[in-house]
């Protein structure tokens, strides 16, 4: 075994690893990237956006509807807004601790044919003073951003 051959082996292994990793990564990224959309982008999109995406904005004040107490259902309906446009959302599950009207949230899921967004997962931020950057940007784009929003209290 000469030094040259050993180097060749290591180089070969390295390239093999690199190739595998690149292939895996490209394959992984192709299917598993979730795009972020604001309500305005959803409404203005030509045709319904297909597949899963993340919808972000503020929970519209007064929009949370829980099922009647005797229905024994977990389905919650509310609307996500960037002030300019609004998308109705339906979610069955336990809402996160910091989910509140008027606060920024991100919903993970897909759009139903009737224009309702079915969320698989709702993310509220960990800190009430914090606005997800995507949501802040969406609000800025719709021209409804005001400086107190990100600061809270």
């Amino acid at each position: 075994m000469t030094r040259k051959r050993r180097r060749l082996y290591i180089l070969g292994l390295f390239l093999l690893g690199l190739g595998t990793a690149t292939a895996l990564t490209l394959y992984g990224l192709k299917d598993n990237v979730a795009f972020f959309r604001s309500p305005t982008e959803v409404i203005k999109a030509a045709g319904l956006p297909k597949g899963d995406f993340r919808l972000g904005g503020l929970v519209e004040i007064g929009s949370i509807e829980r099922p009647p107490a005797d229905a024994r259902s977990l389905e919650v309906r509310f609307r996500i807004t960037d002030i300019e446009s609004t998308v109705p959302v339906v979610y069955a599950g336990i809402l996160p601790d910091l989910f509140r009207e008027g606060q920024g949230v991100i919903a993970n899921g897909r759009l139903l044919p009737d224009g309702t967004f079915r969320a698989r997962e709702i993310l509220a931020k960990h800190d009430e003073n914090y606005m997800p950057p995507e949501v802040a940007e969406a609000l800025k784009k719709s021209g409804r951003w005001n400086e107190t929003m990100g600061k809270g209290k």
Partner: protein
Amino acid sequence: MIPEIGHYALVLALAVALVQASLPLIGASRNDASLMEVARSGALAQFGFVALAFACLTQAYIVGDFSVRNVAENSNSAIPFLYKVSGVWGNHEGSMLLWVLILALFGAAVAAFGRNLPPPLRARVLAVQAMTGVAFLAFIVFTSNPFERLNPAPLDGRDLNPLLQDPGLAFHPPFLYLGYVGLSTTFSFAVAALIEGRVDPAWARWVRPWTLGAWATLTLGIALGSWWAYYELGWGGWWFWDPVENASFMPWLVATALLHSAIVAEKRDALKSWTILLAILAFALSLIGTFLVRSGVLTSVHAFAVDPARGSFILVILVLAIGGSLALYAWRAPSLRPGGIFAPVSREGAMVLNNLLLATAAATVFLGTLYPLFLDAVSGAKVSVGPPFFNATFVPLMVPLVVAMVFGPLLAWKRGNLKAATARLWVALAASVIAIVGVLVVYGVSSVLAAFGMALAVWCAGGSLVELAERIRLFRVPPADSLQRLAGLPRSAWGMTIAHFGLGVFIAGAVASSAWQVEKVQIVQPGDKVELAGYTFLFKGAVEERGPNYIARRGTFEVTKDGKPVATLHPAKRFFPVQRTTTTEAAIHTLWIADLYAVIGDPQESQQVGGPALPTDPNAGWAARLYYNPLIPWIWIGTIIMALGGAVSLTDRRHRVGAPVPAQARAAASPAE
């Protein structure tokens, strides 16, 4: 007055670090003993000053000095004592101070325990360590001063983020930082070696304990963080591939690779320049992690404050440290003499494979973590890369790693015999096959992936036991001889067996909990029974409970199996009036082979979300989420075993005795073969 002393100490520490970063380097190049000696006293003094500053801040937190802005924003008079103390690092400024404290601690440790190091190397290591210190002390002094005063002082503080008021998270940052920042020592050794242009087995031996210590504490720190996520976030999961989790995991992957390649550098004088590169990369990833977490470019609980000045400051440190060290590497590494050669099938070969797979895994995690930032910068599109990506890329890389890692220790240095190794592993192989068949019989053909996952766990744990049995020649020599061999095994051998075994335990936990978790989300009314994986959860209603600084709604589930009581679970939601925030307190009863896990949500009647109010109707329904998590405690047991392996290896005799240049190294100096 005391906060001002703290501030002053911090500035003094910066001044000392500046001296420590410059004079010893000059001393080392001129071989001037007195200048080199500056490094040692400098490192000790720097640590003293930073420790004083840290003590001052801690004092302000304990007595509740709300005239200090940092205390006013992150503490409160009603908060329990533990969280008054952990509040010190539960915010941006304080956590950076902890970062620097640990950095200085490692510098002081090298100064105190590095007596057997050659003076020029020690001087250079401490100087490089001080350069990192200068950067971060300047960062604190200029952008993140924890001692800033408020005038007028508020009567009370705004409380610590309730999510951080938790014992798991109180200790998570110190452990994580011990690991994260501990890699700085390895980095300093690598850069010092590049400056000297010399890497020999003795160098690898000096570096080893620092890498081991950092690796073990990093393992514990990550485990604590994941444990916290498991019971505090209430999602029943333990790892979410969150960018912040990844930020701590990437240095771990590279540190693990480094731990293995350093063995080759020490024993065989090979892979030297690669080992140096890994040492640089491990700390570079720690810095990148600090940047990602501290700059606020990521959305997470760790993003305490978003301030562009801080982000750019850390970015500059990052570019200087990584760019500088890599440039030095590119310039000096070619001058490192290549060491002993080996066949592809050999222990060195196995370590190379280990390194390639770990480095590739770290690269895929890196890509997935930074891809959203990259895409945002290039096209403005906002995306997020979630767990499916990481499961699709990371897991396939780990499978060959675990399969191969069992062979590694059974192969000889230089040239191994794969056939002989396989023959010795027949017990582990048989156990793995039994695991596959067993899982398929019990859970059906649909569990085929889980079956292979469990087989991998058995293979890993079994293989490490086989290796131990081989070492003591169990059943081949009389039992007394085996025992004697067992007692005589070096601690590093024990460490490896324990750590590899721990990985097997971890894999079993990770596979079983993701494959066979049972989840039920539903509305429960008092008196309702929920059946879950053979256990009956009886909901007894919810009551209000007052804590020191919160009001809780606390539910009660009585869990029985076949009519026999198993546990009483009290999941709760805590409302913290000062911050107007709610946290979920999951109730967990561990059976050691599984966890029973309950979370309570909002009462069905209330339209308002959050807040402490109990429903007026005592029979109101509550949203509840119940989990049966099989083998999930093994995840943390496994990681603790792994860290324990690192600690045992750390106590190995050869780390304590002076490390003269071994005969082997001198032999390797003459051209081999």
